[in-house]
């Protein structure tokens, strides 16, 4: 399943890059994130609790940031599993400056298994879009706070 999209932040690209590379911010912004541990530089263990209908459950996963090219792009490689099934995927995250804004674009390819696949890819598509939206909104909030504080 392909996941693509963009999101614009009203902040300098360096700032956005910094936020996207800070464990505490990611943990704060990730919907349902109970714990995020950096096991070694660029590698993380993550524990999520998701309460949305068919994908409801606890998930344990790990992800890795690879090919990091500050402040322009990195590759996100991850996998996670929970009772409803597993998710495995890879995404290219790119930042670019457009006027006053920083635009983040993502191109991902995700494989789902178990009941997660069985309940319908279109439903999963909707849920992941919703969660991403939530995630970016939270990041945006953090970005705005940082900008306002001028940090």
């Amino acid at each position, binding site marked *: 399943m392909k996941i693509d999209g963009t999101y614009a932040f009203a902040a300098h690209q360096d700032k956005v890059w910094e936020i996207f590379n800070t464990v505490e911010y990611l943990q704060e912004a990730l919907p349902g994130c109970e714990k995020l541990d950096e096991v070694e530089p660029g590698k993380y263990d993550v524990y999520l609790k998701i309460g949305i209908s*068919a994908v409801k*459950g*606890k998930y344990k996963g790990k992800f890795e940031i690879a090919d990091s090219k500050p402040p322009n792009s990195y590759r996100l490689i991850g996998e996670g*599993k*929970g*009772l409803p*099934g*597993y998710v495995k995927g890879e995404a290219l995250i790119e930042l670019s400056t457009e006027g006053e804004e920083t635009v983040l674009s993502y191109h991902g390819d995700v*494989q*789902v*298994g*178990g*009941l*997660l*696949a*069985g*309940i*319908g*890819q279109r*439903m999963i598509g909707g849920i992941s879009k919703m969660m991403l939206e939530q995630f970016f909104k939270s990041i945006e909030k953090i970005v705005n706070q940082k900008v306002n504080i001028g940090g």
Partner: protein
Amino acid sequence: MEDKKKPTSSGKRKWVGSSYKRKEDMRLLTGRGRFMDDIRLPNTKYAAILRSPYAHAIINDVDISEALKAPGVIGVVTGKDVKEMSNPYPCGVPIPPKYYVCAVDRVRYVGEPVAVVVAENRYLAEDALDLIEVDYEPLEAVVDIEKALAPDAPVLHDNIGSNIYNHRFFKYGDWESACQEADEIVKWKFHFPKYAGSPMETYAVIASYNPFEKSYVIYNNYQGPFVNHALTAMALGVPENKMRWIVPTDIGGGFGTKTGLYPYCALISITAKKTGVTVKWIEDRREHLLASATCTDRITYIEAAVRKDGKILGLKDKAMDTSGGYIRPPEPGCAYRSTGNHTGAYDIRNLDREVYVVATNKGLTAPLRGYGCQELYFSTERITDMAAAKLGVDPAEMRFRNLIQPEQMPYKTATGGYYDVGNYPAAFKKCLDLVEYDKMREYQKKAREEGRLVGIGLATVVDPSVTNIAYVAIGKTIEERKNERDKSGSGEAVIVKVDPLGGITVICSTNPQGQGHETVISQIIADEFGVHPDQVVVDTQYDSSDRLYTITTGSYSSRFASVGTNAVVKAARNCLEKAKKIAAHLLKIEQADVVLEDGKFFPKGNPEKAIMLRHIAGAAHWNQFDMPEGMDVGLYGTSMQSMPTSRPPDEKDRVNSSNTYGFVAEAIVVEVDPDTGQVRFLKWASVHDAGTILNPEIVRGQVLGSIVQAIGGSLYEEQAYDENGQCLTASFADYLCPTAMEMPKVDVGHFESQSVLTALGSKGCGESSSMSVPPAIGNAIADALAPLGAVVDKLPLSPSNIWHLMEKAKARKN
């Protein structure tokens, strides 16, 4: 049409043939049915099953330590326990895979059980599943039948060494000479989908183990055949009589889904033994859709050798079935259940067959209503229409030229089937009249001129009922069979007893799932004894400890109307025979002079001296000394009947795979929306010959039910998988079942050719249109799309699939 009704013991037939109101309905409609989940036993704990998210993976480790510490958890069973406590199931193929009821060291389809948790309640059991850590090592999966046969395909079972569970060739008659005589050879490849029965009640088991007697009690909602009782005993390694099966009176539908091997009986039994408690497990809907059982999907390469005048001289086909990650009984039966009626309603003497049953990383299969026949007839009836189109013969005319003629009855098919009676051309004509065929062709012509896509689809098929278990045997070659015991039979058992106050109780092992056996048995007994059906009590609950049963017992393969009624009538007549002997003794006359009429027993010519059944029962129970000499006391009759036509396969692989054969003619007029691919039914006629109709309303229900089920498989339903073997249809949001809204108006007609093989002249009709509708819908949509040049060779014909067909045809034209 024959009008002579078969005689009954009490003089005239009064109740059989009437739409006597179903005895079952009041309790079912008012929520008083007693299903598996209504059974509450003491000290019961609840199971939840962990299932594989991978289609193909090695299991390196299953860590249950955290789950065991979870609140309310009593125990956990894994593949390791299952391997220690049970054997793989046997299966009628040369090398059976090691099919355990739970994955041991490898998973082969998504949803395969990996562990079972037992806890105080289902919620806690489900929570604990979350804590089981399974270390999977994913392997490449294969889902496509033909790709599974490629030399570089991942092999599922090392002990088999390839993905071929079963491969056989058959030769009946002389296909080569048919080809020489033919003017055209028409060939095509067809694909039949994997769809499900979706009964309202899912699988359910309650099992307990008695360590002192080393015996199990297993409540379940299995349909039969009770050969599975023996197979489960073999898997658990216990004698059959140490494993008691109880099936409640009410089962919420089966449609064949519950006739396949029922692995959960063994799995939950093992769990009960290990945990020492009574374990209850009710399958949830997602589990059911993901991993219970569907029909067998099939690829067919078929060729028909036809003469210019439309006569089909021979058929050659290669059927490639997949039974998924494992093969389990009665598979490879999907390929063989229809052997006797492979040439259907047509007089075709030459047939070459090749059969493959293939392993793929998909869910497992069971005999879905129509078992094997919808797969078969979709290819044979579509190729018949393709041949008609090629020869420029009208499809109705094409069928008339090939139908077996009434004077050919009884007809022995090239493959060993024995059709006892029937008038196929007359029944087909009735169907064409009902749909107003000629008028509809005119209508179609006009519609086409307006650019509308209107099509007419026909199918004429033979509807087999009461399988003879011999059909499973031909999965093996004649050589392989030589070392084994022959298999044959279709037996069913009934006990009729008369209590000390003269009440009649019928105890049967027919194990219905909604077919109305209580009602119809009451009608039959009422006619035999000359009483009112309301006076008859019928007990259909199954219990292996006190019912007579054999390996073929149960409700499947539309058995009741044929062999079930034979057993009812024979048991009733055995009971009446005894009653007449006692009556003769009491009346001090010869038995031959006893007359039974309207429930009265009297000396010939002296009705005023009549005694009633209660008097006879009274004597047999209350004054046991005064019985005819040497006679057992009490009043009862029993019968366990097979059919004389149930014989083993012969040395030429011919087998009478069923015992009675009905006929179905389907005529469907459709209109396809050229923009959306949506199909609308404009007119539909369905004519059935199932011999004597026992209860017209029940038959109507069966016919309409088989139609709506087949509409599902033809237009909407498919258990779909992606290329990784992930099931994409595990909820009713994606797995589309037709509802009342999708049910068209159908004109149902009947033709009654009384069977000479059954006591009442009846034949099965529970499956009927489930086998004729998929080809008829295929033919109708093919006919509608013909002006575009689109070819229909695949089901389901969903709007998007039809739209793609139309687009492809347009692209070809441009």
